[in-house]
């Protein structure tokens, strides 16, 4: 892999990190090549040899053709190949992200971003200063040794240089050490009553003991002390998130961000992200401190706190007061958003929007609008309703009668039991959606490929079925999308996407096919129940024929196209509806014929 040279240098730790990942990426790419040759040879010897001969030159890519056909010959090997290819792509993307970062540094060093570059290349700057200090020391020793003979030597300037070098080196070293900081794990409050003494907590977090007395006095004097305490708790969550959150405007999106909710809560952000975010985190901390000091001195502390909380949250997710002048955010909705840990996803989407255009800059205004719509309705408190009822989503849900529409929107649940574990399903259509794609398959993650998340959080036609495992209490163990699509005759149909398991869950409990089938059986059972209640057919991938059979259900093979009505999130993303993974989809379109199984109620 060729490497982009950064003329200003990057911290050594990043260089090493890049080198390690590049080696792994190269090794994995070789493995993929071997596995692909093996798969091709299997296909050539199978009944699908002619299909393969035709499909390998298909415009949607030989890789997709290879895995799709192999799935029919040997599903297990197809899964392995798919995993290998995904890992290989993921590693290569990390390297590309790093190189893109270097390119940005190089570009920024020519322009007004030079200050940021100086920060980011702190280690190199520090080394240069240390080296200069060594030279200054040698000159000083020489002048001293020369005695009166060096009488006219400019020692005043030597002192000035030494003083500045020492001061700079200290500051720079402190800055550089930011990349090595260990961030505290998330507060993880499940309710606004989760802190015993939010005033004391905030005062301690901000290193400002005097603030505790002021806030406690304000709370005691408030008309509703409990509500005041809850607003303080929400502020504590905001502080906790903001002082550890990646600065996506600097770090950008990429596969170096964590890939599970557990890791975000543990704040295992990589050194690059921690380093690039430290300045903003300190600014946020100072801003929260100012906010609380203003509250203590305000005539109406409750009003000042709620207004300050709302304003701060909007700033943290990257919106200015001017941009949100027409919004009607409410303190209650902002508190819900904080409890839902939405600061990071909303910030990531907003601050990486310019990277979502895939080269078509004309899309940017629509992407901006789409992201702003989601943020606005979240802070206004009507997000779940807006997602179903906006005009584009309403068109997507056309053809449903009132009862079917109510059933589609409703949250359902099923249980499955294999004698060892009882799994329970639920549906997500609200504030939990931005985190859904941090369960398994990470490419749709808010800070990996935000454009792939946009359709899920904007379209009423898609919901997420989540599986809760009692042995995995922190977040859902698996997820799958269920969609409401149409046949070419306009009749609605349900469409079930493959499932994804939480990476840490898979690491903990293994990846045995029977365990995966058990999980997917819960999702299929859930989707079938929904199809029964809505009286609609359900489309399922053919690779899950065994799961359907295991549930005692019948499904027929079908081979027909489906209609995908226009997306409210600029893009649509799916591995089964198209070979493109994600694509702009602002008009109704018809898929290629899809070989699926269809369950009919």
């Amino acid at each position, binding site marked *: 892999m060729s490497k982009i040279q950064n003329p200003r240098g990057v911290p050594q730790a990043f260089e090493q990190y890049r080198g390690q990942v590049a080696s792994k990426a190269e090794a994995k790419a070789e493995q993929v090549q071997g596995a692909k040759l093996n798969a091709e040879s299997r296909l050539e010897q199978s009944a699908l040899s002619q299909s393969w001969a035709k499909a390998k030159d298909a415009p949607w890519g030989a890789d997709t053709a290879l895995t799709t056909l192999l799935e029919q010959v040997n599903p297990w090997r197809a899964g392995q190949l798919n995993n290998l290819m995904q890992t290989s792509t993921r590693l290569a993307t990390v390297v590309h992200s790093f190189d893109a970062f270097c390119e940005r540094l190089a570009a920024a060093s020519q322009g007004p971003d030079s200050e940021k570059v100086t920060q980011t290349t702190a280690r190199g700057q520090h080394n*240069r200063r240390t080296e200069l200090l060594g*030279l200054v020391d040698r000159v000083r020793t020489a002048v*001293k040794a020369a005695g009166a*003979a*060096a*009488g006219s030597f400019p020692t005043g300037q030597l002192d*000035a*240089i030494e003083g500045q070098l020492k001061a700079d080196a200290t500051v720079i070293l402190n800055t550089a050490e930011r990349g090595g900081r260990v961030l505290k794990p998330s507060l993880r409050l499940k309710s606004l009553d989760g802190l015993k003494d939010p005033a004391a907590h905030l005062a301690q977090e901000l290193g400002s003991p005097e603030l505790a007395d002021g806030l406690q006095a304000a709370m005691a004097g408030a008309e509703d002390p409990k509500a005041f305490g809850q607003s303080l708790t929400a502020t504590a969550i905001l502080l906790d998130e903001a002082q550890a959150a990646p600065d996506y405007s600097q770090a950008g999106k990429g596969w170096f961000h964590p890939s599970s909710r557990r890791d975000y809560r543990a704040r295992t952000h990589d050194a690059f992200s921690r380093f690039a975010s430290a300045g903003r985190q300190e600014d946020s901390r100072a801003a929260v401190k100012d906010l609380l000091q203003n509250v203590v001195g305000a005539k109406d502390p409750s009003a000042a706190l709620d207004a300050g909380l709302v304003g701060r949250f909007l700033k943290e997710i990257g919106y200015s007061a001017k941009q949100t002048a027409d919004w009607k955010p409410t303190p209650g909705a902002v508190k819900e958003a904080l409890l839902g840990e939405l600061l990071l996803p909303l910030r990531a989407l907003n601050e990486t929007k310019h990277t979502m255009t895939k080269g078509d800059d004309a899309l940017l205004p629509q992407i901006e609008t789409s992201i702003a719509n989601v943020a606005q309705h979240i802070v206004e408190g009507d997000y779940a309703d807006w997602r179903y009822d906006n005009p584009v989503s309403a068109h997507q849900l056309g053809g449903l009668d009132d009862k079917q529409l109510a059933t589609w929107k409703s949250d359902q649940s099923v249980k499955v039991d294999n004698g060892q574990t009882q799994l329970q399903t639920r549906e997500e259509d609200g504030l939990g959606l931005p985190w859904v794609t941090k369960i398994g398959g990470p490419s749709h993650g808010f800070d990996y490929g935000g454009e792939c998340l946009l359709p899920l959080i904007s379209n009423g036609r898609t919901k997420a079925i989540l599986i809760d495992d009692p042995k995995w209490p922190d977040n859902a163990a698996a997820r799958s999308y269920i969609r409401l699509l149409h046949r070419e005759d306009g009749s609605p149909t349900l469409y079930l996407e493959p499932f994804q398991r939480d990476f840490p869950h898979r690491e903990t409990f293994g990846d045995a096919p029977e365990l995966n089938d058990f999980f997917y059986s819960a999702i299929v059972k859930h989707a079938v129940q929904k199809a029964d209640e809505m009286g609609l057919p359900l489309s399922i991938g053919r690779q899950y024929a065994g799961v359907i059979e295991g549930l005692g259900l019948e499904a027929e093979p079908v081979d027909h196209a489906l209609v995908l009505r226009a997306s409210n999130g600029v893009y649509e993303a799916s591995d089964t509806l198209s070979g493109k993974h994600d694509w702009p989809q602002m008009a109704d379109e018809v898929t290629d014929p899809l070989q699926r199984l269809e369950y009919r109620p």
Partner: protein
Amino acid sequence: MSKQQLELAGSLKAKTKTNPKAVARLLDGRVTLPDALGVSDAQIEGLRRQAIAMYEAGKPQACVDIVLGVTALGSVHPLDALLLSRCYRSLGRTTDADVSEAHYAELMALAVETQGFAGPAGGAA
């Protein structure tokens, strides 16, 4: 007082004067250390002559200190390595002396090859 002594003693003003802009330029990597200090070639050569004087006066450590300071200012002469070699040997630092001698040989070869060697102004080792 001789002309040389007058030159070296200089004025108090030149000695204590500071130039913050030059410091900033040095930190930005836009100028070298001698440029930021505002030290002249004559002053550097004066220090080198003082190094030779120290060697001749039997003060090898002072000679070493001055030579290292002069080279830190970016001024390198083949004689520096020879001076260092002899000083280190008299200080009992034989390894350093050998390394300096090797440097001297390399520098001399280079100097003869490229421009012809001329001894430093005002003295000889």
